[in-house]
């Protein structure tokens, strides 16, 4: 039964171009429609238009019918009777979507009372029931807690509980898992699935993550520049995409599935926010198979496959073979280098510790505890290799990076760069050493000084060291990172995210460093832009022989670029080894769980996967569990007998090699590793 029918929906903000241009779709009972698109594609405007929450200066035309009832054009008061009862919404940021001063139980109970007129005690009881349904342990007690006492994942569960409080007909979820770690994302998606089963609601899931859609949605709609450019059943669209934009999106994803690390193709240029009126297909400037007919007017969706698979493309003949649409850029070959063991060590970290003291009180400061941000980690990075530090947020990976960047004496342990111990450095030597160690930050929007031109930004490293940039060096660097000489005179706000990140990389390369520290360099970029930046980083490493220390939370990205990977959990490295070994045969249960939680952008693989989900959230970082820190969430520990479990409770596991093979350097800190030494797979 079709519950939600959207036809020709257009959203226009006061003067400018429409954010959504004539979008239409149907969603049936118990069906999930995944709406994907990059930033600026109009997907959030679409969500807000459906629930009538756009600001008053936005004009909405077209039709949104919920069980045959028209919603567009209703007054806010009328919509309020429908919102929360028949039509519910789950927002991206559960912290700002919940009122901070009321207990969550009361907030859910209020949602129940408004629409059903139940008494407070009955509504509260229902709230506890709902919290239990979404998997919040100790629901009756936790109902009395305020939002700040919940973690991000738990808050999103509360939001879902509130959304399903009145058995809605349809749920609109706008990026419900984007702010969450992968392991928590997997939990929340499971909850959303359970909520769907319990209510039979139609779900519109808006996301930029093609992996989430692959695992969760039945149908997919790809949005670009405010239009639905391709839609159809998930399996069909993933297997045979016909719109060049969809093809580009799917190909630009780094994959870590069975097919191995096929190099993703980048889709160049920024997603246009404002397509020229009547200018034809908005994707034309980036499209490799554009023909003359693409100009003129927006292409209408045409049927290209079974079960209503449509693509809004003029030249669908050219996209019959998706692999041929985007030419793969030439890979920079990796020059033959001596084996790892013989290459010089660029960075050596041993027993590095960074504890943050917590103080209470203003006048008399009392030490209230210690956050063990980094608690004794060790690794080395050799020339021309990439070591990735991965882990969930709060695991200490960025702290470790910053601690290395300080080039000063650590609280405990040692850091040696190019053989020089940072604890023993004099200021002049430290400054000189900075030329060899450079950094690229996560957010290209905050890492460049908004008041400086690109040329000045790139030349700044020279000035900082009292040098003059050699003539032509800025142009050379721009060229190296794939920017035009004309970009030199621009200010950062005149560049797209991908271009800014390239400027950041050029600045880091200016002094020809030997070691580059990258803090989530592609996490803030759209997937189609990510591929280009990753290509650039890979090419630079292969050409210049720089060593990378790459901090990331995205395991697919890491799989693509890293040679070795170190998995961190609560300030410790729980597993380290070559990418092939760690991804292929994870020894630590945490690594296994992380890998399991990453959604694969392939519906068939994603649905066939057998996964052991990780329970719960990170423990309080000021009081890690005794013995093994991962114990509280470990699926393996839960299955152990009393004798084996004792070891996990009493002894903190130390990293030890997982194989006797000389070629292997996989180490894991686990008493009961998944792949025991020499046991094969």
């Amino acid at each position: 039964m079709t519950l939600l029918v959207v036809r020709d929906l257009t959203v226009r903000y006061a003067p400018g171009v429409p954010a959504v241009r004539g979008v239409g779709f149907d969603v049936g009972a118990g069906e999930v429609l995944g709406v994907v698109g990059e930033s600026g594609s109009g997907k959030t405007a679409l969500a807000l238009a459906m629930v009538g929450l756009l600001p008053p200066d936005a004009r909405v035309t077209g039709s949104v019918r919920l069980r045959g009832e028209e919603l567009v054009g209703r007054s806010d008061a009328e919509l309020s009777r429908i919102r929360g009862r028949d039509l519910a919404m789950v927002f991206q940021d559960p912290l700002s979507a919940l009122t901070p001063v009321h207990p969550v139980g009361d907030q859910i109970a209020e949602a129940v009372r408004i629409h059903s007129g139940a008494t407070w005690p009955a509504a509260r009881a229902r709230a506890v029931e709902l919290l239990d349904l979404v998997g919040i342990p100790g629901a009756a007690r936790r109902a009395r807690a305020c939002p700040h006492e919940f973690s991000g994942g738990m808050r999103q569960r509360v939001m879902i509980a509130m959304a399903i409080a009145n058995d809605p007909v349809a749920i609109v979820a706008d990026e419900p898992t984007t702010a969450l770690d992968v392991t928590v994302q997997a939990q929340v998606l499971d909850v959303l699935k359970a909520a769907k089963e319990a209510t039979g609601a139609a779900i519109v899931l808006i996301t930029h993550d093609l992996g989430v859609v692959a695992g969760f949605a039945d149908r997919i709609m790809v949005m670009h520049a405010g239009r639905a450019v391709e839609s159809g059943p998930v399996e069909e669209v993933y297997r045979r995409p016909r719109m060049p934009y969809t093809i580009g999106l799917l190909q630009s994803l780094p994959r870590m599935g069975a097919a191995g690390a096929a190099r993703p193709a980048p889709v160049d240029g920024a997603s246009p926010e404002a397509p020229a009126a009547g200018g034809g297909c908005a994707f034309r400037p980036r499209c490799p198979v554009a023909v003359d007919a693409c100009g003129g007017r927006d292409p209408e969706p045409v049927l290209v496959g079974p079960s209503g698979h449509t693509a809004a493309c003029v030249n669908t003949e050219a996209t019959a073979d998706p692999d041929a649409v985007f030419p793969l850029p030439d890979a920079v070959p990796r020059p033959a280098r001596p084996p790892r063991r013989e290459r010089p060590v660029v960075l050596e970290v041993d027993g590095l510790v960074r504890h943050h003291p917590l103080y209470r009180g203003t006048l008399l400061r009392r030490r209230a505890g210690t956050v063990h941000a980094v608690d004794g980690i060790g690794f080395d990075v050799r020339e021309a290799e990439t070591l990735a530090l991965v882990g969930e947020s709060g695991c200490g990976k960025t702290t470790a990076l910053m601690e290395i960047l300080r080039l000063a004496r650590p609280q405990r342990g040692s850091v040696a760069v190019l053989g020089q111990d940072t604890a023993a450095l004099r200021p002049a030597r430290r400054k000189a050493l900075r030329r060899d160690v450079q950094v690229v930050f996560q957010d290209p929007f905050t890492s460049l000084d908004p008041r400086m031109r690109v040329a000045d930004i790139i030349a700044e490293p020279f000035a900082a060291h009292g040098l003059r940039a050699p003539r032509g060096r800025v142009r050379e660097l721009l060229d190296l990172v794939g920017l035009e000489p004309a970009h030199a005179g621009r200010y950062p706000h005149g560049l797209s995210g991908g271009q800014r990140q390239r400027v950041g990389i050029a600045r880091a390369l200016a002094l020809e460093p030997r070691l580059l520290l990258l803090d989530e360099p592609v996490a803030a970029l759209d997937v189609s832009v990510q591929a280009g930046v990753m290509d650039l980083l890979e090419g630079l490493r292969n050409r210049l022989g720089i060593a990378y220390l790459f901090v990331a939370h995205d395991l697919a990205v890491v799989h693509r670029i890293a040679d070795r990977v170190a998995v961190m959990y609560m300030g410790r490295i729980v597993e380290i080894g070559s990418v092939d070994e760690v991804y292929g045969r994870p020894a630590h249960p945490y690594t296994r769980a992380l890998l399991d939680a990453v959604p694969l952008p392939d519906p068939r693989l994603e649905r066939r996967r057998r996964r052991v989900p990780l329970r719960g959230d990170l423990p309080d970082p000021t009081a890690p569990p005794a013995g093994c820190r991962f114990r509280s969430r470990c699926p393996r520990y839960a299955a152990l007998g009393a004798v084996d479990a004792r070891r996990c409770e009493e002894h903190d596991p130390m990293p030890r090699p997982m194989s006797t093979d000389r070629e292997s350097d996989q180490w894991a800190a686990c008493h009961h590793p998944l792949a025991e030494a020499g046991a094969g797979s």
Partner: protein
Amino acid sequence: MTTGLAARTAPGRPAGTPSPAGPPRLPRRIARSRRAVAGLVLLAALFAVAFAGPLLSRWGWDDTDFTAFRQGPSARHWLGTTQSGRDVLALTLRGTRRSLVIGLSVAVLSTGLAGLVGTVAGFAGGRLDRILMWGTDLLLVVPSFLLVAVLAPLLGGGALVPLLAAVLWMVGARSVRAMTVSLREREYVLAARFLGAGPARVIVRHVLPQLASLLVVDASVNVSVAVVAESGLSYLGFGVRPPDVSLGTLVAAGQGAAPACPWPFAAAAAMLVLIVLAVNLLGDGLRDVLDPEAGPRRGDR
């Protein structure tokens, strides 16, 4: 490229030449701001009148015309005379000159001090930060107006400017520090530090430009506050001592007779209003120009 190197040779201040590729440099942008230009012109006019005016006038500020006491405007005395026969125009110009010099130098001194203490405390953090802020807070709770009133006569006329500056910088320093602390954690500031740039360079290149609009607003407020404070002190007899005059003493002297003879009072009060107006216009205009997110610069995409 060339623009980059040109700017490098003269770091800190943008070169005056507008580059072909980018948005115009600072002077050009100021010229585009109506408010800044209006304020600048008004301020320049006030200075010109206050310094050049007396040269053209027949009467000096300390001359006494024994033939005209407390008279209205006439061809002989354009703005009339006071009770003691002094020329109101000459007195007002003299007072304007004093007030302008005091206001501007106090503003420059106190805002400079605020910027210095604020950025150093905010950027250094730790113990130095705590000591500096402790001192700032201590000065904040001292009744500053009384302090100046007591100390100014003791230390002589020249001490008025430093004294006023010394009691006006604290609020500015606190907000500068707060902003510096948040700027210090910005990634581009971190990036500059990790590039190897020293603290002085980071403050000058990356922190101060962001603080510019805050400092300009602080300075323009301080001009007004200093002019008004000086007038207040002089009015009470603690500031400028007779026979010298400032706008404050003129207002004080003129107010008693204002109903019958408004000229001395009105002329001084009008000048006071004009000074404050000019400075605030200029400050507002500069703030808009210096704010990177503000209007016209966006147009260069």
